[in-house]
């Protein structure tokens, strides 16, 4: 494992995050279908706010080319009518936009403190050695790009490795070796949680927000012991949150409302806005069957 030094922090961040633009980029590399899909992305956002589409658009161009190229940047700039510099600034900010060809499988090893100390550091070092690549580098056969990841929000399954962002939980050096060997041998092992593996380009398409009935399959296994452990233990111990009945709560809400109206201390942060009819100033009793007036400020 290469430890970061001051001159080379060992991983990309804003200091080292530059983009090599060897040529101006050609938006016409992307066909009509991509333009149509770009239009679909823009349509997800309010009229006049097309720039909001930039993040998913970059995932879309990455899903076609495997990384963000000069062409992808030119395409996004063209579609959104912003400058290529504006697009490049965004590309270089986010970790998930890759700036060199990415392998069919992006293998990410969490080396943040918890996963790292529970074995993630060893796994990252071992995979680097086996694959002969460093951080953010791709094997010669183009199968695997290895990267170390920051916290992937699955600490209760540490140490975590993801392949194209699908979880492989509770990894060891041995299990991670087995995993990458299978990937290099053309297999696609099932993730511990999540959907069956697909290619990096295909997963980027999902992240761009394009799903099929298959990718949304609602039955895919997505839970595990740590997720459910507390609730199972509660059942075992016969414990639960206080119960409530809907009838009772109507009355209670009214009571609470009355109590609040009677004595409501306010802090400086708490001052109701002049234009809001909320809270103290609201004229109606709570819990009543008054017709709502949606969208209408009172």
């Amino acid at each position, binding site marked *: 494992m290469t430890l970061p030094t001051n001159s080379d922090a060992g991983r990309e961040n804003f200091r080292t995050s530059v983009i090599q633009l060897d040529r101006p980029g050609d938006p016409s590399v992307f066909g009509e279908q991509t333009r149509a899909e770009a239009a679909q992305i823009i349509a997800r956002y309010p009229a006049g706010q097309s720039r909001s589409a930039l993040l998913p658009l970059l*995932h879309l161009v990455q899903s076609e080319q495997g990384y963000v190229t000069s062409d992808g940047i030119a395409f996004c700039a063209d579609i959104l009518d912003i400058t290529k510099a504006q697009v490049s600034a965004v590309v270089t900010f986010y970790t998930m936009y890759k700036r060199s060809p990415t392998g069919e499988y992006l293998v990410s090893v969490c080396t943040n403190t918890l996963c790292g100390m529970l074995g993630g550091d060893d796994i990252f070092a071992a995979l680097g050695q086996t694959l002969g690549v460093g951080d953010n580098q791709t094997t010669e056969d183009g199968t695997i790009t290895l990267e170390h990841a920051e916290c992937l929000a699955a600490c209760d399954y540490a140490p975590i490795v993801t392949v194209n962002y699908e979880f492989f939980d509770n990894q060891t050096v041995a299990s991670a070796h087995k995993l990458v060997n299978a990937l290099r041998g053309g297999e696609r092992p099932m993730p511990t949680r999540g959907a069956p593996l697909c290619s990096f380009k295909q997963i980027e398409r999902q992240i761009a927000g394009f799903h099929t009935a298959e990718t949304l399959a609602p039955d895919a296994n997505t*839970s595990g012991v740590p997720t459910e452990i507390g609730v199972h233990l509660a059942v075992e111990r016969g414990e639960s949150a206080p119960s409530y009945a809907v009838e009772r709560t109507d009355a209670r809400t009214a009571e609470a409302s009355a109590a609040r109206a009677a004595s409501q201390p306010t802090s400086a942060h708490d001052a109701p806005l002049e234009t809001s009819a909320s809270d103290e100033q609201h004229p109606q009793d709570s819990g009543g069957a008054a017709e709502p007036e949606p969208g209408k400020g009172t």
Partner: protein
Amino acid sequence: MPLTPVLTKRFGTDQPWKIENYERLDGYTGLRKALGMPPDDLIALVKDSNLRGRGGAGFPAGMKWQFIPQGDGKPHYVVVNADEGEPGTCRDLPLMMNDPHSMIEGIIIACYAVRAEWAFVYIRGEAVHAIRRVTAAVEEARAKGYLGSDILGSGFNCDITIHNGAGAYICGEETALLDSLEGKRGQPRLKPPFPATNGLYDAPTVVNNVGTLASVPYIVLGGADWFKEMGPAGSPGPCVYSLSGRVQNPGQYEAPMGSTLRELLELAGGMSRGKDLKFWTPGGSSTPMFSAKHLDVALDFDSAVAAGSMNGTSALMIFDQDDCVVRAVKKWCDFYLHESCGKCTPCREGTYWYVGIYQRLEAGGGTIEDIATLLDLSDNILGRSFCALGDGAVSPVTSSIQLFREEYLAHVEGDGCPFPGARALVGAH
């Protein structure tokens, strides 16, 4: 302390993420009730409940809602912060995976209360599993008439756009998240103005965490007093504690706010390898660490602060005697350096120098002055950085020096890390 599953109560049941199963277990009854109430009453109810934001800061959710100016003629937005990434934090993704409809129901109620018709769920890009699950759930909700126009015949219109991030911890900061949602680099904005008046597209915006919004349907059904039956008055409700690290049974334990590590550790079967507890975080890496002295600190927003830390995201990362605290902090510093957005000097330069110093301490070559330099650096970051990321970076450094100064000294005197595991890794360099 009993376990009190509310947000997690459907976990482990038969495919709780499917709308039919959700409906069978009270799903969307909170929405039906809410749509029969005046919006201002909903704001008052959530305020009464004293539901405090589960994203870390603990700001009262009802107040956030109340700050939205009404009758201003502008569109209002609700933005869900599902950019879970604080080291140690792992409860929003399982919630979205197992019970996405509770969040969606909360979003619709929030929209109705603050008079917004459009909500955005900002999910971190790496969380493809949650992206798929929430996408499918939104489609189900739309098909059933819980989203779209004239919801349940109320005349209220509301829809949800799922927006996927691209890998940047800073986007969990609410104004950075808004910039990112607008298609820019995710850098925090100067506050004030706050998002409540100048948020997404410069319009009034509520930004709430996943767990905060998922709590709302229960508060609507159970009432504010029911919610306050759990936990202390200043910080009520159930709290999903995420235990990870050197613990026998890591996972999600939902108990009243104000539970202690001693109680939680007992539930989780104790330490995992027969070693003593050494240090732990009460709410993610950005909250000052605790030690075995703090086993009985009540873990709620106010008590954790009184004890010198924060409840944060109730992410308890637990480490034992064989774990090197200097190495742990070094790795967190690597993280903050990587994730600093570079906008402000104290955070950008401070995290950079942190890493250099920790590198020396671990690998050898650290000096006694380095410890003083770390504290001096910390003084120049804390309260001087643009957003809370800089403050968060300071937390593990200063708290570990305070609690484990002798271990720092051992690194200096031994010319490197005295722990065998870490030395092996340094040697591999």
